[in-house]
């Protein structure tokens, strides 16, 4: 019984962290599907979102429920501007050029953040209405921060599902990601849609950053968590939104279990071991579609 409780406790905390991976992976996938750009700066967008949240809530003293949406909206604007100013001019250039630009954006974001006087290279703490509270579910203990992460992720995924399924902009985004040429000629402003998608990805990253802040603290290097979200996106089959969520959860849970049951050090490689195993068996990822060329 005790072994089972320990196991469940690890799964629970793994799932909470997995939700964060899932949200960042979701950002990767949204941008990749629409524009075929792999945004290596997705983790840094999350970091900037967390810093903005810290600024509004801790430094400016705004209430959490005002600071959170404010940070999310600011990040959506930053995401859209990044697309307009940095990414759009290089679309159509060789893939490595685009990869270098997004990697560069990550570097600039990290050093930029550490140059901001009130941010610097220190770790910052900011508390949310959930911080420090716990709920017992039978023998399990869940912190409210963890529950908030899971509930928010679930709600966000549901809203995004409805958005893509039923709204005109959501449907236009899907159309643009399936065939840009055809999208233009049914009258979809594809370039503007791409900027909106970057905005959406950055907004999702900001939510992830603010939810994660009470657990890992706010720091200029917190974006490196994107390195775990990347295998999550690949695991799910790059390009699949349900895949990104499932991939994130799998990586989170495996990591948490590996940290608890396996010797020191396995925790950090667990994500990649799982990724290698899955790709060996299912090269297209969990939810990916097979790429078969018709002849």
């Amino acid at each position: 019984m005790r072994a089972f409780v320990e196991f469940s406790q690890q799964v629970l905390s793994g799932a909470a962290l997995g939700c964060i991976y899932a949200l960042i992976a979701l950002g990767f996938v949204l941008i990749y599907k629409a524009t075929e750009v792999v945004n290596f700066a997705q983790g840094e967008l999350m970091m900037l979102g967390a810093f903005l949240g810290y600024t509004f809530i801790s430094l400016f003293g705004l209430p959490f429920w005002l600071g959170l949406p404010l940070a999310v909206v600011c990040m959506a604007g930053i995401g859209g501007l990044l697309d307009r100013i940095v990414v759009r001019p290089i679309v159509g250039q060789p893939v490595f050029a685009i990869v270098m630009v997004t990697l560069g954006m990550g570097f600039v974001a990290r050093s930029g953040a550490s140059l901001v006087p009130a941010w610097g290279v220190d770790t910052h703490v900011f508390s949310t209405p959930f911080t420090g509270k716990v709920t017992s579910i039978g023998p399990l203990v869940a912190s409210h921060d963890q529950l908030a992460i899971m509930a928010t992720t679930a709600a966000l995924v549901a809203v995004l599902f409805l958005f893509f399924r039923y709204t005109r902009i959501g449907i236009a985004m899907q159309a643009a990601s399936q065939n840009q040429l055809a999208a233009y000629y049914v009258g979809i402003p594809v370039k503007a849609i791409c900027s909106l998608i970057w905005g959406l990805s950055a907004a999702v990253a900001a939510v992830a950053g603010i939810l994660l802040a009470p657990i890992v603290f706010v720091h200029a290097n917190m974006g490196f968590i994107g390195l775990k979200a990347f295998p999550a996106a690949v695991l799910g089959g790059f390009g699949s939104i349900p895949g990104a969520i499932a991939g994130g959860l799998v990586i989170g849970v495996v990591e948490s279990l590996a940290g608890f049951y396996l010797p020191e050090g396995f925790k950090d490689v667990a994500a990649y071991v799982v990724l290698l195993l899955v790709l060996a068996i299912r090269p297209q990822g969990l939810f990916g579609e097979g790429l078969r060329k018709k002849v």
Partner: protein
Amino acid sequence: MSLLAIDNLSLHFGGVRAVEDVSFRVEPQEVFTLIGPNGAGKTSIFNLISRIYDAHAGRIAFEGRDITAIAPHEVAQRGIARTFQNVELFEHATVLENLLLGRHVRFRTRLPFELLFTPSVRAEERAHREKVEEVIDFLELQHYRDSRTGNLPYGVRKVVELGRALASGPKLLLLDEPSSGLNTEETEEMSFWIEDITQELGITVLMIEHDMALVREVSDRVLALNYGRIIAAGDVESVQAHPEVVRAYLGE
């Protein structure tokens, strides 16, 4: 007034003159066909009209308004729809969804109302669905309504693409080789549809076509191009018999 007026249009790729000083007029409700050997500049003219390329010189006017420099997504809003040589569909969507996307430019709803799913949004949805069902009936696509287009045979995909163009309710339809990849029976069907599109729906058609039987069947006027220049224009018989055209196809 001509529906489409093209004046002194030129497009160069480096030293290659893809389109050179081309002018012609397309009148309402006619079928106007561009013919010519491969590389004559026919598709380039389509791409200029639908704004994939920027013209180096010349002017394109639709319904008397200059469209030489509008954004590509505005072309559909003005009432010009097109199909592609190699079929460009939303592969992961069904036939119905593809056709509904064709209606995209006609949607008037705004996001806040959509999120609330207000009665006006539902009424508009219904109107678009009806319009799309009309197109499905017209092109006899009922059987494929809910199939994913990626899985359909080429001939059907071609018809779906035509349906998506029709769903937008265009005034001018650009058809890039409507018969390419179709068998004789399907080509026959395509020629009936093109006639119905102009006569029943009153839509003007500008098309590129190699199949001379189809060209003869449906075209009111024909324009022959070679190396980006106009070599002959007029009714089918006179263009086909024109010595320049014969030389372009058969060589000296």
